[in-house]
């Protein structure tokens, strides 16, 4: 029985690993090909199957005047917008979540749960519903096609995620912990940042990770709310596609696009695998 279990376990782990990693390897291989290597026959291994070239990668940093598509600037734009919006969302979202978790709000028939639901309901709506209001809003305040405008829109998109995750997290931190901090001489602000916050690091990491992922992969709003001045990475990558699909540079740009997420995942994985998520508080 246990032998069969072990076998099945490793079988599925192997299967899943291949399933996940194979496309990456395929993309890595393709990014070093040229038109001929892609279109002649199925090839896998550089030097053995085909002659590798760096052309797919060079295109990404060449200026358009020299026939390239410069993704360096969109890349840093994406990093700036994602990080700024995530950071602000986490700070505001955590404060909002703490208030929603600890204090009782009453306004007519509205209670804490309704406010929490209001936040998450922003994510229930299909993005297309929000696109026109966002467009009019940004054009009215003159932030269309600007980094600041994108940051504002992404905060609207990311903060509900931060609130949702952190409310759930704070609800699992016993209220008696805050009370003990108050009794031990902390005022409510000190109780929050000296006691509650240090015990919420796993929650903050998870919320931060989700914000970064959702901010980084957004294509829709980046596409609608920008034109020529500012471009974000996902839009630029899609723009690579012309009459001839350049599989080599598409693969290369896809790899550099997911690289930051992979790095974040590896950093966060240390915290998750330590069991810090559930073990910090009981």
């Amino acid at each position: 029985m246990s032998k069969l279990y072990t076998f099945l376990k490793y079988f599925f782990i192997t299967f899943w690993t291949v399933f996940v990693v194979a496309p990456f390897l395929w993309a890595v291989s393709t990014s070093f090909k040229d038109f001929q290597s892609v279109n002649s026959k199925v090839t896998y291994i550089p030097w053995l199957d085909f002659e590798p070239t760096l052309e797919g990668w060079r295109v990404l940093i060449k200026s358009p005047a020299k026939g390239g598509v410069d993704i360096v600037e969109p890349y840093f734009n994406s990093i700036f917008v994602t990080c700024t919006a995530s950071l602000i969302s986490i700070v505001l979202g955590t404060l909002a979540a703490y208030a929603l978790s600890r204090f009782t709000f009453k306004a007519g028939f509205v209670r804490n749960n309704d406010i929490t639901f209001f936040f998450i309901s922003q994510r229930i709506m299909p993005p297309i519903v929000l696109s026109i209001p966002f467009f009019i809003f940004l054009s009215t305040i003159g932030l269309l096609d600007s980094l600041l405008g994108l940051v504002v829109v992404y905060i609207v998109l990311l903060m509900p995620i931060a609130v949702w995750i952190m409310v759930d997290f704070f609800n699992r931190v016993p209220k008696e912990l805050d009370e003990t901090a108050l009794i031990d001489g902390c005022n409510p602000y000190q109780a929050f940042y000296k006691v509650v916050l240090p015990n919420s690091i796993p929650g903050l990491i998870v919320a931060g990770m989700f914000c970064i992922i959702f901010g980084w992969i957004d294509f829709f709003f980046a596409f609608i709310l920008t034109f020529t001045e500012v471009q974000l990475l996902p839009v630029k990558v899609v723009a690579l596609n012309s009459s001839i699909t350049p599989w080599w540079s598409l693969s290369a740009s896809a790899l550099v696009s997911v690289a930051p997420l992979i790095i974040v995942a590896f950093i966060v994985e240390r915290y998750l695998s330590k069991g810090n998520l559930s073990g910090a508080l009981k």
Partner: protein
Amino acid sequence: MNLIGEKISYKPDEQFHLNDVSFNFKKGNLYTILGRTLSGKTTLLKTIAGLLNPDQGSISFEEKDFIKIPVWERNVAMVYQQFINYPHLNVYENITFPLEQRKLSPEQIKKDVDEALKTVGLVGFENRKIQELSGGQQQRVALARSLAKKAKILLLDEPLVNLDYKLREQLREEFKRIFSEGLSQDTILIYSTTDPQEVMELNGEVIVLDEGKVLQKGPAKEIFENPSNLKVAEISNDPPMNVLKGSKNSKNLNFENISLEIPNHFKNLEDKDYNFGIRASEIKLDENGEEFEIELAEISGSETLLHLKRGNSKIIALIEEVMNFKIHEKVKINFNANKFYAFGEDEKLVSSPYGGTNG
């Protein structure tokens, strides 16, 4: 210079959590609050700590209006029934936390913390993480943090209830020692519990609380000997005091077709109907006694609790040995008539074997 509460009421919803509670706690004394779960014990302690503001009434301490002082300036200490410590700090940092908050000198902090660690028996555990400790040790850390603060008011909210039986017995013994040697004469100690045995062992002044109301105040011995009414008799005994509806005439006590000779302390009692109270420990197995039917037999430690029934009366007898009984079997028991209490039909104490007749 006392901690005085006057007519405190707290009613956050339909029900009173505290209903017209008054107290006068003196420094250097131990007070126990006895009550069942949800009787308002925790609410009362939180009100004293300042975590809750009462709807009505006043609290003053050292002649100052306590309600106007925020929690973090009150200099109280509190130990919860859940083991509440700061999970991100180790044992030593947990205990220094309130002291650093008050900006004491490092030498003073070290001295106070070492002393507290010694008192609770956690020397050598300074660098342990909280999660690595057992429940009993976690509660010791919480207690050490409270002691190190040298707060003028120390609140303990059912500190032993979440511990297993053995540890509870052991910590209870230690508490008695800690309270007698580890506290200054400047401290008011308030200890809440559901366990009558803890109240008797700690032997302080007792407040019996039920549904937010104070039922009786007095020394532990007085509560035990002369519970002012049936409710108190029930709450302050474990198992609860047995109640038998019956009557007294010139010759006998009668209940459930049983006649007992009138004990001496009932001689002057009016002839009428009463609620007779008798503790489980005052009922013995006796070949020549009265017949009862066994409903349930529980063995706890070295004792057996017999749940018995006769007519409309259900009683519990505490047999001080481990015996096996069959359910629905008949047993014969005898009551120690000299230990009968008489409560009037209004449930107030009329006569007690210890001479109390406070109505």
